[in-house]
């Protein structure tokens, strides 16, 4: 670094950001609401380390990880890029000593080393849950219902959950050579019907199978698509997938949440660790999902005994950006004392805090309007302004109380008078 010209940039590395109190408050409060919702279904929060051995994240491309070499062991270590494998690791570690199921929730950032020019964040804040133990499709359905309820709790109305099952696709292409299967996978993932038609021409696959594969990209829509899928299911694996999907939908229906559901059996993104049901939540005109997840029965097996697992993660930033008119009530106070008589501020501060309000005493040498501006920026709703009465030089200072959303200003001549007003305002 050039010491003569010592000035560090004010900006964090590309793809990361600072959260000012208003944003950070919104963020943590939203996370709280989600976590509380999940706690209501029996999920309890765990905290996992922010670094892991690189191999834990083998589901992601290595160049997408932020990694360092452990000085002691020489092993590669990566910053957390995904909570799910971490929780699978953790679950494997405790599987012998604790009783299944494990119902865990989490909240924190994941780091992904993406091209910063893409405009996508490299630090993504997630709230999510993992359910380790059951294999039943109904447990997938419960996760979907929880996801829907948590969005309802944040006043989301227009969204839908797209449900699929990766085993359907896997069953269809099971007996195709791996190289060809990869090519098919690529086209189906992009719903590239034209490309699919082209590559199938050169493949030694029987014509009936080709026709089935050609239909895969268009296997999305309402529930009726499952009927079509049954006709395409020429193997047990795909049939089991459809049975599972129907069980998921039936269970969601018991909670009367079926209106949110769409089906896409051609959806095979994130195929790497999912082994069954997958689901993603979309809101109109936002290109990426706001939450997504699915079943991953083999993931715990990477670390030890294998057992059922499923979960989902909510992208907190997308949620807070699009939750619209949701406002958290704020009843904060600012005490601005321009008299120099600190006993007033202190007594009022103690009183208001005991009442359960958030209060801050200002030590800035501001004018009344400057205080108001400061309050607006920091989402503080009430001002207690203590000043000397200009008409009479004698006597105690006056106390002015005002909600900044209202015109009316209340003037009090003494602290008891003020206290009484506040007490009655609440009732």
């Amino acid at each position: 670094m050039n010491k003569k010209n010592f000035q560090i940039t004010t900006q964090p590395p590309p793809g990361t950001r600072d959260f000012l109190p208003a944003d950070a408050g919104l963020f943590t409060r939203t996370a709280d609401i989600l976590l509380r919702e999940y706690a209501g279904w029996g999920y309890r929060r765990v905290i996992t380390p922010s670094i892991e051995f690189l191999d834990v994240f083998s589901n992601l491309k290595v160049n997408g990880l932020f990694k360092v070499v452990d000085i002691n062991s020489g092993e590669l270590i990566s910053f957390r890029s995904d909570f799910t494998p971490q929780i699978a690791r953790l679950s494997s570690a405790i599987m012998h000593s604790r009783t299944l199921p494990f119902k865990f929730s989490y909240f924190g950032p994941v780091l992904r080393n993406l091209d910063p020019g893409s405009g996508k964040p490299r630090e993504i804040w997630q709230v999510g849950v993992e359910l380790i133990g059951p294999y039943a499709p109904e447990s997938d359905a419960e996760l979907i219902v929880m996801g829907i309820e948590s969005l309802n709790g944040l006043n989301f109305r227009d969204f839908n959950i797209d449900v699929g099952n990766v085993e359907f696709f896997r069953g269809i292409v099971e007996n195709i050579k791996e190289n060809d299967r990869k090519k098919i996978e690529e086209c189906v993932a992009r719903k590239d019907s034209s490309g699919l038609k082209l590559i199938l021409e050169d493949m030694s696959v029987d014509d009936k199978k080709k026709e089935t594969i050609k239909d895969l990209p268009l296997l999305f829509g309402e529930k009726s698509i499952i009927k079509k899928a049954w006709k395409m299911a020429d193997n047990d694996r795909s049939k089991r997938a459809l049975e599972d999907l129907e069980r998921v939908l039936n269970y969601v229906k018991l909670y009367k949440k079926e209106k949110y559901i769409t089906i896409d059996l051609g959806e095979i993104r994130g195929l790497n660790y999912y082994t069954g049901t997958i689901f993603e939540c979309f809101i109109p005109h936002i290109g990426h999902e706001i939450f997504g997840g699915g079943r991953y029965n083999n993931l715990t097996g990477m670390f030890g005994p294998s057992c059922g697992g499923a979960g989902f993660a909510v992208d907190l930033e997308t949620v807070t950006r699009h939750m619209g008119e949701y406002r958290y009530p704020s009843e904060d106070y600012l005490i601005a004392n321009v008299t120099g008589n600190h006993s007033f501020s202190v007594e009022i501060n103690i009183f208001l805090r005991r009442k359960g309000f958030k209060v801050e005493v200002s030590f800035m040498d501001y004018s009344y309007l400057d205080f108001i501006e400061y309050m607006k920026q920091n989402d503080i709703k009430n001002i207690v302004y203590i000043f000397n009465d200009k008409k009479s030089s004698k006597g105690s200072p006056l106390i002015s109380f005002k909600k900044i959303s209202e015109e009316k200003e209340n003037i009090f001549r003494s602290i008891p008078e003020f206290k009484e007003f506040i007490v009655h305002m609440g009732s």
Partner: protein
Amino acid sequence: MRKRPKIAIPKGRMLGSSLELLRKAGFITHPDEDYNSRRLIFDYEDDTSKLLIVKPSDVPTFVEYGAADIGIAGKDILLEKHRNVYEPLDLKFGECRIVVAVHGNALTIAGDNQNSFAIKGLITDAGPALSIGNGNLVGQKTFNEAGKGAGKSFEIKLTNGEGKSNGVGINAIKEIQERYPSSFKGIIEYNKKRLYSQSNLRVATKYVHITEDFFRKKGINVQIVKLYGNIELAPLSGLSEIIVDLVSTGETLRQNNLFEIDEIAKVTSRLIVNRASLKTNPKGIASAIESLKNIIEGN
């Protein structure tokens, strides 16, 4: 009722065909002139869609982020930068190819003295088709055949008092291309092999990722120079030995004495769809795809 879909289409080369297609499919109703102004958003009340006219390489970006529900983008742009969008339909227009090309001078080899040079080629399966001994090529030449059969090479020696910079070599190659296609193929094959075995070959292109990918798969180490336009200038000015560029008729290559040595990909326009638009309005998007598909296949 849902809002009208927003469609991003590329300005420039493919604008006309895009508008025509959308008009046939009933998304827009006005004639081309109405979409040809400095405005970038066209939101006519009698159209069933809103049009965004953007730079071709930006179409996938608009669609990926949901600023547009669907878009029309060249496959070259989709190959160059992976975007999280669906591409359900080949629209079949805007056909062209991404190719590797080399300047004619690179196909000739300096000879024994300043005024002589040679063109070498592989003898292809088609046999020693060349009978250049007839004296049709410019300048003096001798034709040496190393032996009949595939895998062997031939060499045409050319001399010219004014040296090869005069374009004699290029003219000779052009003549061979026209009159002896199988020998021309042999020349290209020979030089391709020669160039690709060079270490640290320099390639100028605007398709950095496509180029990187292509040569990596071939196991060839190249140094890529990113340019934003007029790629054909690079070999003329000595910036790079070869280029990777989009060609439709090949006229630009011809005019600049460039010769195609490899094809990387065939390119057409694709319909692309935002993921959330498809998921949140599956019926609408499916029927839009269907109606466009019918028009294309009806052609």
